[in-house]
């Protein structure tokens, strides 16, 4: 693979299965520098911008907040903090439409911007992080609300803590940016390589990694040389290699990049930490540097606004919460009405139904495609079993089989074919000659499996509650019966009054006493027989009478 390299460090690269070449369309937007966008009048900041539990709002409506002030605190371990992107008044905390394929709403903090952009006091910079405990630095990253900026937005502090029994040997910095049209990481690497390397140094310290590989697709020569130059000015040269990798979609997928750079496979259902690898996006590295060295929370990100419908495509530095429409307007609005507006790239992005949704930490691109760029694929035809989807699948799945089973709603079979290893890269759907929306079927199947799992859990809970109720009713019934019985008994006791206990017990006692007397008399009579003449007449005569009395009393019982 050395022929691929304008390589500063020629080294062996591996390949992953499949992948496709797509026109990269990066030249549309990567010409100019990153442009800061003016503050919008209102910021809508979603409380769930990350994977995990949504943040809990910690401001009230009517409260004035400052730029960088915490407005949502993380709830639980896999969660992330949310900060105000500018100063202003909190006017609402309510569900608002957010960028999501469903077009649904989620809780957001709405801030009426006052334009002063007054900063909250920053956290103390941890410039001496090398001598600090990694957990302190990790806590800072968590406080700053840093999440993976490559698109998945997984809380970075969680990823940085692989657990005590795992050692991270390799840190991979993902600058591949393989998806067409998107150039935000490219521009960031060109313009702020030193900031990225600062972040890389911190990440290395936190992970304790022995080597660092920065993978960049070779269609970003300027970014590669910028990073190489910046690297030369630091003492990280021994540890860090900037590695150009062949341009092939989806080389920027975490598992694919790990495969390309190290030849290792992340196990199915596993995470890279299991094979000693930590993978972070370049933007995330820069955000970590801001959080640790400057005490700044993550309140803005670089967003590519592109597509041939946009008058002046470019990259913008956008405060989180800015509506998408403001970005389009800042880029000169639409040159022609777009056929669709995507959040993300053309391969993995999803359509935005509402241009007013805010930019979140996960938004890397707004893509307004013309009808020519995104032609209507026409009706889906029948699958002809050509197998091209299997050839391009980077995960070596069998997309056809997954399609058949998902279509037939046979979810168990789809899972047998490793449905959940699908990274939804869209290669199979892109090459399908029948234009079958394959990825849509897989997404349907995945969410359906999750939903059924939830239903099953709920059913189990309901069953337990029902059972508990039946047991409770049974117990109550028994208790009621027992009570009734006791009551009846006591009533009966009362009804017969003093007579019964008085008659019964003394009667028995009398019988017993009589028997004893009789027995004693008999005994006495037997013993007394030889001495009968000694005037024991009355006792001899009374013995049979006593026995008779005893019999008489005994009879009625």
């Amino acid at each position, binding site marked *: 693979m050395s022929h691929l390299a304008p390589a500063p460090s020629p080294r062996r690269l591996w390949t992953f299965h499949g992948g496709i070449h797509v026109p990269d369309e990066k030249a549309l937007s990567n010409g100019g520098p990153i442009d800061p966008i003016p503050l919008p009048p209102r910021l809508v900041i979603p409380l*769930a911008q990350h994977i995990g539990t949504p943040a809990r709002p910690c401001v009230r409506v009517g409260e004035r907040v400052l730029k960088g002030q915490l407005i949502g605190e993380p709830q639980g371990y896999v969660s992330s903090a949310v900060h105000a992107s500018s100063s202003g008044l909190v006017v609402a905390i309510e569900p608002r439409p*957010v960028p*999501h*394929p*469903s077009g*649904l709403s*989620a809780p957001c903090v709405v801030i009426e911007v006052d334009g002063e952009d007054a900063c909250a006091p920053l956290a103390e910079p941890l410039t001496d992080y090398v001598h600090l405990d990694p957990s302190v630095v990790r806590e800072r990253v968590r406080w700053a609300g840093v999440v993976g900026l490559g698109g998945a937005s997984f809380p970075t502090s969680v990823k940085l803590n692989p657990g005590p029994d795992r050692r991270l040997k390799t840190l991979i910095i993902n600058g591949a940016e393989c998806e067409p049209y998107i150039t935000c990481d490219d521009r960031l690497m060109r313009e702020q390589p030193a900031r990225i390397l600062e972040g890389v140094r911190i990440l290395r310290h936190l992970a304790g990694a022995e080597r660092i590989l920065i993978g960049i697709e070779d269609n970003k020569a300027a970014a590669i040389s910028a990073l190489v130059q910046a690297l030369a000015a630091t003492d990280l040269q021994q540890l860090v290699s900037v590695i150009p990798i062949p341009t092939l979609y989806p080389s920027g997928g975490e598992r694919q990049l790990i495969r390309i750079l190290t030849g290792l496979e992340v196990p199915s259902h596993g995470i890279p930490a299991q094979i000693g690898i930590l993978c972070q996006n370049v933007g995330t590295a820069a955000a970590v540097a801001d959080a640790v060295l400057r005490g700044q929370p993550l309140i803005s990100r670089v967003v590519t606004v592109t597509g041939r419908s946009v008058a002046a495509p470019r990259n913008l530095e956008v405060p989180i919460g800015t509506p998408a429409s403001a970005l389009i307007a800042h880029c000169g609005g639409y040159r022609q009405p777009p056929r669709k507006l995507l959040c993300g790239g053309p391969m993995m992005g999803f359509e935005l139904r509402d241009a007013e949704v805010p930019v979140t930490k996960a938004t890397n691109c707004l893509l307004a495609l013309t009808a020519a760029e995104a032609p*209507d*694929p*026409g*009706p*889906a035809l029948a699958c002809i079993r050509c197998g091209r989807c299997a050839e391009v699948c980077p995960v070596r799945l069998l997309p056809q089989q997954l399609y058949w089973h998902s279509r037939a*709603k046979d979810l168990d079979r789809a899972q047998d074919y490793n449905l959940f290893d699908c990274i939804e890269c869209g290669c199979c759907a892109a090459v399908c000659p029948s234009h079958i*929306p394959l990825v*849509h*079927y897989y*997404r*349907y199947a*995945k*969410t*359906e499996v*999750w*939903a*059924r799992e*939830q*239903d099953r859990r*709920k*059913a*189990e*809970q*309901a*069953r337990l*509650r*029902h059972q*508990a*109720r039946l047991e*409770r009713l049974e117990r109550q019934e028994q208790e009621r019966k027992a009570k009734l019985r006791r009551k009846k008994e006591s009533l009966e006791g009362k009804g017969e009054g003093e007579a019964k206990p008085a008659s019964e017990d003394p009667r028995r006692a009398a019988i017993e006493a009589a028997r004893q007397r009789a027995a004693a008399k008999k005994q006495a009579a037997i013993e007394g027989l030889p001495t009968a003449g000694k005037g024991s007449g009355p006792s001899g005569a009374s013995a049979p009478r006593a026995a008779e009395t005893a019999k008489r009393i005994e009879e009625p019982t």
Partner: protein
Amino acid sequence: MLIAILAIALLSGVFGLLLGYSAIRFKVEGDPVADQVESLLPQTQCGQCGYPGCRPYAEAVARGEEEINRCVPGGEATVRTLADLLGRDPVALAVEEKPPAVAVIEEQTCIGCTLCLQACPVDAIVGAPKQLHGIIAAECTGCELCLPPCPVECIHMVPVGTDIPHWRWPYPAERKAA
């Protein structure tokens, strides 16, 4: 001849004892098929199948006395999984599927009669005599059993709105030819 008869008699005696012993030693309590069927039912305990709860219906299905398409809340998915389990042919659902809903009590109207409390199969209604009753939405299975006993009709079924964590991708629609 005699030896053969004796040998067979002996063998059958031994095996008979063995079978008799194992029938006692390895006796299966309950009905495993009914258990399996029950685990696939949605446990709303709604009685819409005509049985007083999910367990009795599961037992009827396991005995082969009842069709597998009686479970309304389970819908088509349950029919399919039951058909898979029991090796029967999937049949169309007996009634129309309903979207999931939870019961909600109208606060102004509730008189605190506790009748709905007694009807709820999963104890999802909290209340006391002459106090306002409330429904634990997370526990409500949407069985609608609390609706008929309410003397003032203050309980309504409200469809469960979906949120982002519970959202499902829709089944891909067949694109029509242009």
